[in-house]
């Protein structure tokens, strides 16, 4: 199911416990899935028996940021889960850690 994403919006996986925030939204409509299912906009919209689809296993790790190769999308995981985040069927990868020294 395609939809337009907005930076700052929160998404809840319908297949696992994963929660993400959209840091950078891709242009136009895209099909984002977490654990193989389109995420929902509120925790209470989740199905009663969520299940991660085969081939969509994660896990997601809290605090990690997930991006596509082209750099069109970035989501921040705020709650971990078993599913993987994918854009138009392609699993997102973990964004490389920053190489900045601790300035404070």
């Amino acid at each position, binding site marked *: 199911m395609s939809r337009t994403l907005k930076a700052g919006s929160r998404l809840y996986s319908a297949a696992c416990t994963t929660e993400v925030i959209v*840091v950078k939204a891709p242009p136009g409509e895209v099909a984002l899935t977490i654990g193989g299912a389109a995420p929902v906009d509120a925790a209470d919209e989740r199905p009663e028996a969520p299940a991660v689809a085969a081939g969509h296993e994660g896990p997601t790790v*809290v*605090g990690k940021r997930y991006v596509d190769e082209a750099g069109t999308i970035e989501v921040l995981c705020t*709650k971990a889960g078993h599913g993987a985040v994918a854009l138009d069927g392609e699993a997102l990868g973990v964004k490389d850690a920053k190489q*900045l020294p*601790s*300035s*404070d």
Partner: protein
Amino acid sequence: MHLSTLVEMIESGLEDRALLQHDGPVTGAELVARARAGAASLDGATALAYVGENHPLLPVALLAAALAGVAFVPVNYRLEDEQVHELLDRQPGAVVLADPRTASRLAPRRAVRTLDDWLAVDARAEGPAIEAPATDDDQVAIVLYTSGTTAAPKSALLRQRHLMAYLLGTVDFASAGEDEAVLVSVPPYHIAGMANLLSNLVAGRRLVYLRTFAADRWLDTVRRERITHAMVVPTMLARIVDHLDGAPAEVPTLRSLSYGGAKIAERVVRDALVAFGDTGFVNAYGLTETASTVAVLGPEDHREALHAEDPAVRRRLASAGRLLPTVEAEVRDEDGRPVPAGGTGLLHVRGEQIAGEYATGSVLDADGWFCTRDRVRIDADGYVFIEGRADDTIIRGGENIAPAEIEDVLLEHPTVAQACVVGVPDEEWGQRILAVVVPSAGATIDAEALRTLVRDRLRGSKTPEAVVVRDALPHTDTGKLLRRAVAAELAAAPAAP
């Protein structure tokens, strides 16, 4: 993004991690529970102000304010009573917390509680949690009063989105190892104190607080608590170097020591690098209005510059390093026109973390640029050299003179520990240049020799008309030189000694 998101992330990713210590370790889960209960107690408040020394559970108050959707307002407890009340009067409806001594000072005139009392009664881990935490990232997260070295203090506003942009742009969540601990000694009313607290919470590093700074206590604490990271302002680093007096620091656990917040003498950095051996040094440059750091000089830069033969590389030790990848910069002249590459002008910055806003309104231009009012030069490799505040520029006979340039020359002389160069009104020249110096321990100042040094190194028009010797220079307690006070004193006593 909003700090309430960080609270959720701590709850799910750092729940078992000891993040604070107060009568034993405080886990992420306890911090979150206390912050949620503290937030519930702020129902109806417009802000949460704190006037006091550092406190090991200060992060509870900051996060509670964020969850409640109100600003956290740390106020300098060292100000006169009258000034503290004036700043607190700017926050009608705020819940005011303080350390015990400050609370008793303020109590006759306003309702105030100690932070300890609020923690024991309201912000208990078992207390009822706030039902609907705030999420609007346009809310004001922190109000900080600028130090006011050039004018009366301004209320700088940092919104949730600025803080989170800074944090997401510079720190990886839970990236610290379980053995890592940071020593916080910068006061809470300083942007570096707030950034220190938040960055290390995001990293998952245990925060150890030094209530008030003293060089020996700082070194003892680093050794005892096996501190791996620390941030100090330049005066603190100078005091540590003085205290060591040439001896090695002997802090084998300390991996990273960052400094910033005011200008530092290059000599202090060189001495510190030698004394601290293996510790990596980081110079951070930023302003309250830029939500902390916008440029950093990292450990590699420090090491290279210390040993380099190439003068350009050696000079980097006096630079603020390079801009963060998330911040854009432009150097412009007083009329707002970009200066040619490598030229000196006013630093303008732009980026998601750049707040550039006061209680009186935003000062960002139409394209989102914030003028720092710092005069800088950016070299071909991207290193930023800060030449001082534009407002400190001395205009003598139509020539613009940066006091820092003259001070740097004076500070090279072994008899000079501190130097301050100011312009005072002059009928003939508009302003004339005076220097005030503080001698190094046991040294005697030869004013003529110092004037000759400046004349030889720079030129006649930049030579101070007189060099005045003083026992001390006035600084803010975070190390910023109070030039206004020096200039006012000299202008009031025009007969140069």
